[in-house]
């Protein structure tokens, strides 16, 4: 039974203190949060912004018995911007992230992803860590943006800490052991142009049908030296588009050609079906989003 002071619905009622679904411990430090998560085991989970967990009833998913709220932990709500690296605490909100990166053009892709997702009130609650840790949320804007920025994820548990590449983290996140918590995202700083293109059904407020995130660097002759492109919301998990990246390297970056190559390669995606749109539609808009992302990157 957790030793931490959980808000517990049975308290004072005379009922057995069995921790009914939904008891919450508001952690004030990272060690305290990791201790509590460790004690809760599989009956517990971290609670960041809550924009996914609070909608569990709508998805007919039961709440966990215990939640450990991490939104008031100073080191998880901080963003550190150094000369060669940017470190983002997992409980940083989308709004705070967009604001912090607004004057760093190399991170336009992430500032746009964080600043355009959902609506203003959601952006003030939803966190970067929640966005990355929610395996079932295919339309997360920050995931492709971070993939194209070559992000690393720091995962902590009581007495242990490790860093893994984001692609690796996305693979292990559905089976992350209880007690392990995504604590930081680490981004290398590089000379590059970046852009984030998304297509929601309405101008804002909706989940995007598809997302294309792009980061490119150029050689002295203005040819693409390196490219990282990630596609989100089309398949269940965002991923890089390595064949398109390879096709862009060594040539000047041209929006029309990039869209043309994207159209030729788009059949490697298997779109996901959903109530709001069919699978084929998600795939069909990707080349246009590639063109838009290239235009935006060139204008950056």
């Amino acid at each position, binding site marked *: 039974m957790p030793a931490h*002071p*959980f*808000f*517990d*619905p049975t*308290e*004072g*009622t005379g009922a057995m203190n069995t921790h*009914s*679904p*939904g*008891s*919450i411990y*508001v952690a004030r430090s990272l060690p305290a949060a990791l201790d509590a998560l460790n004690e809760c085991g599989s009956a517990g989970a971290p*609670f960041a*912004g*809550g*924009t996914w967990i*609070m*909608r569990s*009833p*709508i998805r007919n998913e039961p*709440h966990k018995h215990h*939640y450990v*709220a991490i*939104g008031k932990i100073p080191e998880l709500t901080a963003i550190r911007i150094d000369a060669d690296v940017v470190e983002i605490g997992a409980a940083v909100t989308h709004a705070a992230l967009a604001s912090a990166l607004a004057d760093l053009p190399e991170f336009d892709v992430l500032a746009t992803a964080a600043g355009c997702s*959902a*609506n*203003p*009130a*959601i952006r*003030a*609650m939803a966190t970067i860590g929640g966005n990355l840790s929610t395996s079932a949320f295919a339309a997360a804007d920050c995931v492709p943006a971070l993939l194209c920025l070559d992000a690393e994820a720091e995962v902590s548990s009581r007495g242990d800490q490790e860093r893994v590449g984001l692609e690796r983290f996305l693979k292990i996140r559905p089976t992350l052991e209880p007690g392990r918590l995504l604590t930081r995202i680490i981004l290398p700083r590089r000379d590059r142009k970046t852009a984030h293109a998304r297509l929601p059904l309405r101008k*804002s*407020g909706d989940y995007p049908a598809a997302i294309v995130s792009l980061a490119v660097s150029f050689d002295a002759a203005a040819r693409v030296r390196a490219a990282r492109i990630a596609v989100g919301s089309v398949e269940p998990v965002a991923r890089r588009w390595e064949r398109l990246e390879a096709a862009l390297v060594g040539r000047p970056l041209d929006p029309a050609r990039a869209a043309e190559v994207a159209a030729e390669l788009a059949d490697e995606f298997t779109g996901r079906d959903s109530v709001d749109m069919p699978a084929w539609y998600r795939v069909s808009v990707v080349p246009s989003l590639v063109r838009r992302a290239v235009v935006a990157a060139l204008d950056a």
Partner: protein
Amino acid sequence: MVLSLTVNSDHLSPATNPITPLVDVLREDFHLTGAKPVCREGFCGACMVLVDGVPILSCLMPAALAVDCEIRTVEGLAVDGTLTPIQAALEACDAVQCGMCFPGMVVTLTHLLTIKPGATRDDIRAALTGNICRCTGYERIVEAALLAVAVR
């Protein structure tokens, strides 16, 4: 631990599950029915309240995380029966229709005019992207917000 909440300067310790959405506690325990639980997904904005001065979707905030916060609902905005400037402007512009979205609209615009007293039409439209009006009465709401800006 028992929940203790402060809403419109009133204190109450509701006997509720800590993960109960704040909107339900406001309505069922505090009997403040201004905030509406419409979509319960954070899309519509009808449940918006101010938590420490910031607009929060009360359908997505568990009651336990509102402890030690100052919560203000639409019922707590007017002082001694005197409407706030945005409330007065919305009335003057006859912007209220069915009323379902309105408490959320008022809360969002109250915050916007606090942080951006000179808000433009674009600022107002951007701020309201998370407030859905099923009567589609947006234009008069935006005009009312511009009026509130102009009379300041």
